[in-house]
């Protein structure tokens, strides 16, 4: 072989350029093959907050049905060496090389990172049907409904995702007799974490005011103390895989919150047991937002002996309300939080005794309304 090609046998006609391409190809294909054999993959992706696919079981039936193959494809992608680094490379290519404005709906805008998702009208109508069925089973309560606006509407430009007017239109005529509480104007982009989908508890005064106005409660003004839990990266930071500044998680402390007693349903025993309003230990877990009311819980009761009224509130809710509910202890003597993703409506009466004349608030983010099948309402 020489510079201009030559030699004999395998090297016949090869140039330095051929050799360089050959070595590059073999080094990359072979190198990654060997590295993937040598490096043990992690069980969990911390950045994506999920368990990674494992090598599927090799059985005759799994082979015949091609389940083994599809499982292996997932395993091969999930266990690839330098996975997080490669995900960052892709994100950089999407936004910097191809100058795209989102990566499969994930964007980075004025209010930080987010993910837009169009309204699924069928799912919205399905969710409304479930809410209506529940509301009809609670005849003597004052009923309210609120959609938690997706942060994408505050991103500082049009994004083809959640649209409050489309959401209202999708629900038009579905929730008659339930008062709609519009929260769109009560929030702005700065009220959400820059790297996460959730709102910042310390910036929910407007949301509380909107609720109090609708529910005819004179808004109390507690002397809040803001406590810093620490810095964290929200779910969008991991999904986007772009370098970005960490968020700071802070929570509100005041006389009402500090004086409240929280009890949780133990799904295994069926009994209520006391627990913390804020669990600092969970801040270091997979989802730091679990600090608020201990994350995913089927049923929580907050008793607030210092509240300004003796009214009770039942919240049918998702994770956003974990940070909102503590603030409502100023107004309500008791706040009951029901998460229909984990508690089937058919057994609700065994755990909750709805007090006539109380308020009930159905409050959901668009992520839940777009996936109504996860609400256990039969």
């Amino acid at each position, binding site marked *: 072989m020489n510079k201009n090609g030559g030699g004999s046998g395998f090297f016949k006609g090869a*140039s330095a*350029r051929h050799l360089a391409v050959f070595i590059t190809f073999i080094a990359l294909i072979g190198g*990654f093959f060997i590295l993937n054999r040598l490096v043990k993959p992690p069980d969990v992706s911390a950045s994506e907050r999920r368990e990674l696919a494992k090598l599927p079981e090799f059985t005759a039936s799994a082979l015949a049905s*091609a389940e083994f193959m599809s499982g292996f494809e997932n395993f091969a*992608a999930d266990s690839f060496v330098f996975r997080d680094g490669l995900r960052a490379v892709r994100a950089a290519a999407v936004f910097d090389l*191809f100058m795209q404005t989102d990566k499969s709906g994930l964007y980075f805008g004025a209010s930080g990172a987010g993910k837009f998702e169009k309204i699924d009208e069928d799912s919205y109508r399905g969710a409304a049907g479930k809410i209506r069925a529940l509301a009809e089973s609670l005849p003597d309560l004052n009923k309210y409904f609120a959609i938690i606006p997706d942060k994408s509407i505050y991103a500082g430009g*049009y994004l083809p995702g959640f649209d409050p007017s489309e959401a209202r239109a999708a629900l038009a005529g579905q929730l008659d007799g339930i008062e709609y509480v519009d929260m769109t104007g009560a929030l702005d982009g700065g009220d959400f974490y820059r790297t996460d989908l959730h709102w910042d508890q310390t910036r929910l005064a407007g949301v509380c005011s909107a609720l109090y106005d609708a529910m005819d409660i004179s808004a109390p003004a507690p002397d809040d103390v803001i406590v810093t839990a620490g810095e964290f990266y929200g779910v969008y930071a991991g999904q986007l895989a772009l370098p970005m500044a960490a968020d700071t998680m802070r929570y509100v402390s005041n006389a009402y919150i500090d004086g409240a007693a929280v009890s949780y349903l133990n799904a295994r025993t069926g009994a209520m047991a006391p627990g913390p309003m804020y669990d600092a230990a969970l801040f270091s877990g997979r989802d730091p937002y679990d600090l608020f009311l201990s994350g995913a819980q089927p049923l929580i009761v907050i008793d607030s002996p210092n509240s300004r009224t003796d009214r009770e509130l039942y919240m049918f809710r998702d994770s956003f309300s974990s940070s909102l509910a503590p603030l409502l202890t100023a107004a309500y003597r008791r706040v009951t939080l029901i998460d229909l993703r984990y508690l089937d409506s058919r057994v609700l009466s065994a755990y909750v005794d709805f007090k006539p004349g109380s308020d009930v608030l159905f409050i959901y983010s668009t992520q839940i309304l777009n996936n109504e099948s996860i609400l256990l309402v039969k």
Partner: protein
Amino acid sequence: MLFSSITFLYYFLPVVTALYFIAPMPRGSTAARNAVLLLASVTFYAWGEPVYVLLMLGQALSGWIFGLLIDRARGNRRLARAALLGSIIAGIGGLMFFKYTDFLIGNVNSLFGLSVGALKIALPIGISFYTFQILSYDFDLYLGKTSVQRNFFTLATYVTLFPQLIAGPIVRYVDVERELRSRSHTLADFASGARRFIVGLGKKVLIANVLGELVAVYKSSDENSALFAWLYAAAYSLHIYFDFSGYSDMAIGMGRMFGFKFLENFNYPYIADSITDFWRRWHISLSSWFRDYVYIPLGGNRVKPARHMFNILVVWFLTGFWHGAGWNFIVWGMFFAFWLLVEKFALGKLLKKLPRPVSRVYVLLCVAVSWAFFDAPDIPSAARTVTSMFAGADSLAGRESLYYLRSYAAPLIAAAIGATPLPATLIGKLGRARAGAAVLTVAEPLFLAALLVLVTAYLVDGSFNPFIYFRF
């Protein structure tokens, strides 16, 4: 198994490449390396079709047996023709059963008001491609263009050869007959093949898949604007080109790595200046297959004009139907038949006189409209898209289409440039200059390495994106 998957790139390919080159070639015999390729190809196919792999091998066996019969009947035209007919019935019969049964049932139901239940047969991947390869072997044998292959395993290696098994190019036995017996392996061929493979992979993953997302967005949107319809038309035109030509590049590249020289399947179709020219540049192996095994046996153009028109209509009906069991594919084929007839019998001379940019715009418009039918689930959906493109949209542009125009502008521009010979011409010019060649010696491997890493990043972080032509 997808070429554009981690499993293929970093498990299958390194193992098969190593085994292939470790396999000995005593006195130049390719038997051991063919055995590696056959085993690898069966594994490759069974990975996605663990049951239908038996169908594929059965069809190869059938083609081999009928080949032996055709050879034995040489000199007895009637017997040879009967053996060829047997091969056609076995091949086309299998294709008809697995691909078209439910379509036929649906149409019989509609026509006669019946309610015969659909069989809901899953389409074996690549059946249209390997059926045509097997048929080409028996046709060529019958026509005396090739000699019989007495070793079933060698024929099976040809039929199942994993680089081109699933989505072509449709390689004819006569074109690889010599290489199946004896082929050389050189570093230059391997490097050229590897380069072609990586570029094809990049075309698929970085361009076709990205534009496929835009196509999906259009289909799920309620916005009926002219801009969105045109954005879709441009995106789909480039998406299908980069998807299919990317696959062909990978197939040709891998073939070259393993010592085979497959014929080209694409030649910059979007610079064609007539529809006739377009079909000389697009899916060349399919159009030449229909030309040699259907059009010419029907008489081609050496017949009266009416018969010539009939021959064209038959070929394009079959071309459309080959692509899918749906009326939209038949309309798509007949749409091209119409323009080919117009060019042959009316406007051909005028087209040649037109400035080239004008004739190219004419081709691009025709092809973009044709893709609307090709990609649509049914004819009304295609008609809606075409109507939106030309007159019937609610608005010129909407918020969604403007957003996606901004988001996909760079990939669309990159794809449009990449669909022309411009990049290859520039690299060719650079390579011919002494300094340029030196630069390329360093730059090309670096570029290919970066491309492969970028593709890997997309695959590690991406979702399943099968090749469009897998469903044919």
